[in-house]
């Protein structure tokens, strides 16, 4: 039961097209960027934060699985592992981002940085060399985690050594702590500092949940595509799907809880430094996007995922998940874009090419990694315990 044969049928056919589409879109982006570099970098940041979020979300859910076990994890573990391997291409995508800092952040622009007191006060933290240094530290930490999570898992496939499960577990505890701390820092650096006078203590958590949610949704959609191939066909059972659906429901509820906490406190405080963040996101057409997010990022998936009927059917569940992927993308747009476009949402064509371009390369890397190994972990003792008939 080698995963690569089974993969040939469906997903692996997408490997080359994904790369071609991705590169093509990136080339078009760069072409547009020569024309208007400011818009290029803004669109670039949106795609970058989204796809990096998916990769990091995969790492977080994977470590959660190692820590608590559960049958849902064995179904999607290889997908999550491949997702973490895309951190390599995301690291490559970081280079253009770092080159364009002064187009993106007021604090990185030498003229504006001295004009605004809010930025001067934060100069100790918000300055270009320190920013680049932090980014390198984040990626080093993430890629180190991803490396060992993949290495030991694959090693277990070959050697069937049960001690590796323990080792993965021991890595995942501290790993989640490292993930939490770095993502908190990174969310402040990359997104919160777009509006340097605004801050919110819950922001890092909202980011983590968004990442986990988008990763989980995407992985469920991919599970549908793979569910006809051999090793997965047996494992994608209604109870396993039910677990995946419950996890998705949990993340959806958590997202709503954290977002509402932030909104209520800032709305009730109504302080000039804080409320402007929401007024920028609730005026013009942005209000409609906010309503869309409340309805389709929370209310509708929440109600649908309460039902066992939906959760136990792969097609229905992945339809909900696909909707959540789209909404996560819109959410990211709503978080980032109003920092510049105060008048209302403006979907520039460079926004599309950036997301599609990075997404295409992301998928190429993802599929290539997926083909490396069996689609399900082979010798995890916890899985053998759960799945007596496989042994």
């Amino acid at each position, binding site marked *: 039961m080698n995963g690569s044969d089974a993969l040939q049928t469906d997903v692996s056919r997408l490997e080359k097209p994904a790369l071609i589409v991705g590169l093509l879109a990136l080339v078009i982006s760069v072409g547009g960027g020569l024309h208007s570099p400011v818009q290029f970098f803004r669109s670039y940041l949106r795609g970058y934060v989204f796809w990096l979020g998916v990769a990091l979300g995969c790492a977080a859910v994977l470590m959660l699985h190692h820590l608590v076990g559960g049958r849902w994890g064995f179904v999607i573990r290889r997908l999550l592992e491949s997702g973490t391997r895309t951190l390599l291409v995301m690291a490559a995508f970081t280079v253009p981002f770092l080159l364009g800092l002064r187009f993106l952040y007021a604090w990185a622009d030498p003229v504006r940085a001295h004009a605004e007191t809010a930025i001067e006060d934060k100069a100790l933290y918000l300055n270009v060399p320190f920013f680049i240094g932090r980014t390198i530290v984040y990626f080093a930490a993430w890629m180190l985690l991803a490396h060992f999570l993949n290495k030991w898992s694959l090693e277990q496939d070959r050697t069937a050594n049960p001690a590796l499960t323990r080792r993965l577990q021991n890595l995942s505890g501290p790993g989640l702590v490292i993930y939490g701390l770095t993502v908190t820092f990174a969310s402040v650096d990359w997104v919160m500092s777009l509006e340097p006078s605004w801050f919110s*203590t819950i922001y890092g958590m909202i980011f983590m949940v968004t990442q986990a949610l988008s990763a989980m949704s995407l992985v469920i959609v991919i599970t549908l595509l793979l569910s006809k191939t051999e090793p997965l066909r047996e494992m994608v059972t209604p109870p396993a799907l039910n677990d995946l659906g419950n996890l998705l429901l949990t993340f959806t509820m958590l997202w709503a809880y954290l977002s509402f906490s932030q909104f209520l406190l800032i709305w009730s405080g109504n302080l000039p430094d804080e409320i402007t963040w929401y007024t920028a996101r609730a005026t013009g057409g942005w209000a409609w996007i906010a309503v869309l997010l409340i309805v389709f990022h929370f209310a509708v998936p929440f109600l649908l995922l309460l039902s066992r009927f939906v959760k136990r059917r792969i097609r229905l569940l992945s339809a909900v998940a696909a909707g959540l992927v789209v909404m996560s993308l819109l959410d990211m747009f709503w978080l980032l874009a109003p920092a510049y476009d105060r008048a209302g949402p403006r979907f520039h064509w460079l926004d599309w090419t950036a997301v599609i371009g990075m997404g295409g390369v992301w998928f190429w890397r993802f599929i290539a990694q997926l083909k490396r190994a069996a689609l399900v972990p082979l010798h995890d003792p916890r899985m053998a315990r759960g799945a007596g008939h496989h042994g």
Partner: protein
Amino acid sequence: MEKSPNQITEDLLRPLLRTSPKYYFAVALLAAVVVVAFAAFGYQAYSGLGVSGLRRPVFWGFYITNFVFWIGISHAGTLISAILRLANATWRRPVTRCAEVITVFALSIGAMFPVIHLGRPWLAFWLIPYPSERQIWPNFRSPLVWDFFAINTYLIGSVAFLTLPILPDWALVRDKASGWRKRVYGFLSLGWRGTPRQWSRLESAMHIMAIVIIPVAVSVHTIVSWDFAMAPVPMWHSTIFGPYFVAGAIFSGIAALILAMACLRKFLHLEDYLKPLHFDNLGKLLLMMSLLWFYFVFAERLTTWYGNEPSEMAVFWTTQQGAYAPLFWTMVFCNFLLPFPILAIKRLRTITGTVIASTAVVAGMWLERFLIIVPSLSHKFLPYNWGTYRPTWVEITIMVGTFAGMALLYALFAKAVPIISIWELKLGLHEKSEVRSQETEGRGKLAFGGQEKLET
């Protein structure tokens, strides 16, 4: 060595049917402390809040600290028990009831503090929105009113969640006892006869309660946190407060549960039921919460420092290196530096180890509540309005009284109700033997993916 069902009944009903003189002595001692605390409260009600240490600018002191602390402790029970039930963790069986009781009593004690804190406690009923003839309603935008509803919902839900699975045990006491006990427990067991229909209803009721109570519990401490976060006070007006308080509540709750279990184990000789395994598992949960707590403190401090608001930085530095720094670093020591190694190293995660860690955590979490409340109030915006706070003997007495009150209520409860759910233990034994017999037949009941996969 496994106990037989009869042995279990015998062991767990013993505290209900026989009472030692030591028990009477302990109860009398605790009751005396509680009486003194009530007297202190009476003195305060008679003379006014001036006898407490509450002065401008610090109007929230020990009382509100204790309020948040006890409401936090109350998250031990219901929440942990509901999560363990839903996750179907088999080790939970001897633990759930000890936990659920903590919720009910800690919540009742915590809910008393806002009333103790009132200048005219007899007017507390003004919080209730009733159609008075003056047409005055409470301010529905105030989180204090939300507190009233949330805490009462949680209290009612927790009492139901605790009582439902007690019914079969009370029926058992009724069947085993004689005399007045038979009549009292017969009344309490509400006609439980153990018919299949009753069992199936109990099971679905427990399942629904377990699902419903989780959002209720989360909402309670979120709303308690909004009592602070909705006020524009430096370091209170912080968006992370909701989940931060909930995580802290669960953290202190698990610690309280470990301490309660250790006491029960020692005083009621339940060594065969509350085993090292339970302390080990709860220790792991406590470890996880300790890390999460550390994250919250870190995220809050980092973002505040990054935000760099002058009024917030005044509070920030007074806790970090000013007058409150000794308390702050003690808190970090108690909540993270001490428990982390004890709980992370498997060899140290013994009963003694977890008890030491839990004691530290309970103290540390109390300090945390104090450090959230007092430094912010004593360093509010304008320096001319800065001040300090010192509790008086009245506040300290009332606080000590609530700890004694908790122990007293727990002791009385353990006398009236089997503190470990007897029928759930027996059910566990039964299920275990069923699995064993099935394994010998070669068809594991725990097959991956459930029953559907058995044919492959």
